[in-house]
């Protein structure tokens, strides 16, 4: 397997409290580009890592307001302007009967906005790979390992300081991860 540039320094942990403490230590050391992969959601980890709040609520609000205003426009235009129908002497348009449609369209638009924003903008789907995916510890993060990754893109990253930091924070199996240029995939013969 050929090796490229250094892309990260990784370390392993075996329990949630230790990894939360390590996240606090890394955040305190000033790292911004680092990530932690765990087999299950660890409560409080994002706070320990000092992650900024998600921008999803702003998208949700925009989607909700769009849904609300389109529901208003739809009912007002179709009921009171385009096709006037007198139903049981009720007014052509009034918010009373509009509320269920306001609500439904608002919820629908918010839900769809949140779904597409979260998966396709914030979570960067459809991106089916990670550059760390050939690392054994990273693969084990699906099962029984908590894997801390200090990325080389961080401005204060140097291999030595990152290794020293992770060792100081008690990580096991601290290792330097290189970019995988090519890997052992079976070659198919046509």
């Amino acid at each position: 397997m050929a090796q490229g540039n250094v892309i990260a320094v990784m370390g392993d942990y075996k329990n949630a409290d230790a990894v939360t403490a390590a996240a606090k230590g890394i955040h305190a050391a000033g790292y911004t580009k680092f990530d932690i992969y765990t087999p299950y959601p660890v409560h409080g980890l994002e706070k320990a890592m000092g992650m900024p709040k998600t921008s999803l609520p702003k998208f949700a609000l925009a989607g909700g307001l769009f849904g609300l205003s389109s529901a208003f426009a739809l009912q007002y235009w179709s009921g009171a302007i385009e096709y006037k129908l007198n139903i049981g002497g009720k007014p052509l348009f009034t918010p009373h009967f509009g509320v269920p449609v306001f609500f439904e369209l608002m919820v629908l638009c918010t839900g769809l906005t949140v779904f597409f924003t979260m998966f396709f903008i914030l979570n960067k789907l459809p991106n089916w790979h990670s550059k760390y995916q050939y690392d054994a510890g990273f693969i084990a993060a699906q099962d029984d390992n908590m894997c801390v990754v200090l990325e080389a893109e961080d401005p204060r990253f140097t291999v030595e300081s990152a290794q020293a930091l992770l060792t100081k924070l008690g990580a096991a199996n601290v290792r330097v991860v290189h970019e995988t240029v090519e890997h052992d995939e079976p070659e198919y013969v046509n």
Partner: protein
Amino acid sequence: MNSVIIADSSFAKKLHQYSLIALGVGAVGMAAAAVFDAGRFLQAYLVGYIYFAGITIVSMFFSTLQFLVNAGWSALVRRIPEIFAGFLPVVLIGLIPIVIDVWFSHKLYHWADPHIYEPGPHFDALLNTKRGYLNPTFFTIRLALYATIWFLTYRLIIQNSFKQDESSTDYTPTRQNMKRSAPFVLLFAMSLTFAGFDLVMSLDPHWFSTMFGVYFFAGNFVSTLSLIAIFIVNFKRQGLLKGITGEHFHDIGKFMFAFTVFWTYITFSQYFLIWYGNLPEEVLFFWHRAHGNWQFLGYGLVFGHFIVPFVTLLTQGNKRNPAVLVGVGCWILFMHFIDLCFIILPNFSPTLSVSWQDVCSWLFFGGLFFFLVARQLGTRSIVAFNDPYLKESLELIS
């Protein structure tokens, strides 16, 4: 954790002091109201009584619910509604004036008046058909049944929860409560729904709404949560209950937010179906409330009971902010009072009639409520310190 008794804290002392002042002012006002106009006095009495009776009964439900679902987060705050439940004796005794009125003076409940069933100009054919349900004997039997259910809930669930304080190794009381809570939640749902029908909805006996029980519950529940929030914020501020963190505020805040939305959903559903159905019997209830100056109270509720708490509690930061939580809590408690006035008082007066009698009644029952709470704070721990879930609650991250 050990028992936390806050008899010497300035919080308990101030609560005791202010409750006595409120009780005194309320009692004088109520006495004056009774002399001034007995009918108006009973209406105000009902407003104040329902307000605090609802909070008491829903507090018992809150505690029962935590046992039913084995809730971990709430172990630290569960004792506070259990202390509120100590108002139950007054709730049970407070039913007596209502029963007396139904039997003898007929000032509150129109259907109790025997004259409307005699042939003549006052004969009411509709109520005559409802007489099998709405008559003083059956009314009294039903109230006695609710009173029994509430009394049993207090004896079997709440007092059993207190019993857990005696032992840190034997969890029998908690185990028993987990089993007992299931039937009692069911009984609670039935008793509160029918108590709402009997005590409040039957003030307008021609009107009926199957949604009313849920509506009644939603308003009471959101105000109980607000009261719990106000108490835990004060305990935290004065350093009386150290385990309380922003996570508990957040959870209570979420609960308040959810039930504000629930109240709105139920209230609107009730209104919407009646508006659309447009049947004379059902519409009259809202006709009285949508005309004259009662309508301002109605609009006030839409803004005050829904939009203000909804917008304030929407963001995460606000739910975790103790000052905001207390502010919204007080506001919701105030709006709940307006809500009850809006349900009860238009039955007796075509024009806006919220008056000093209602405020005095609120002060009277509120004074009594907080007096009993303060008295219990003198002897009872404000945290269920032997609860098996307490550790989980202390480490809560929401």
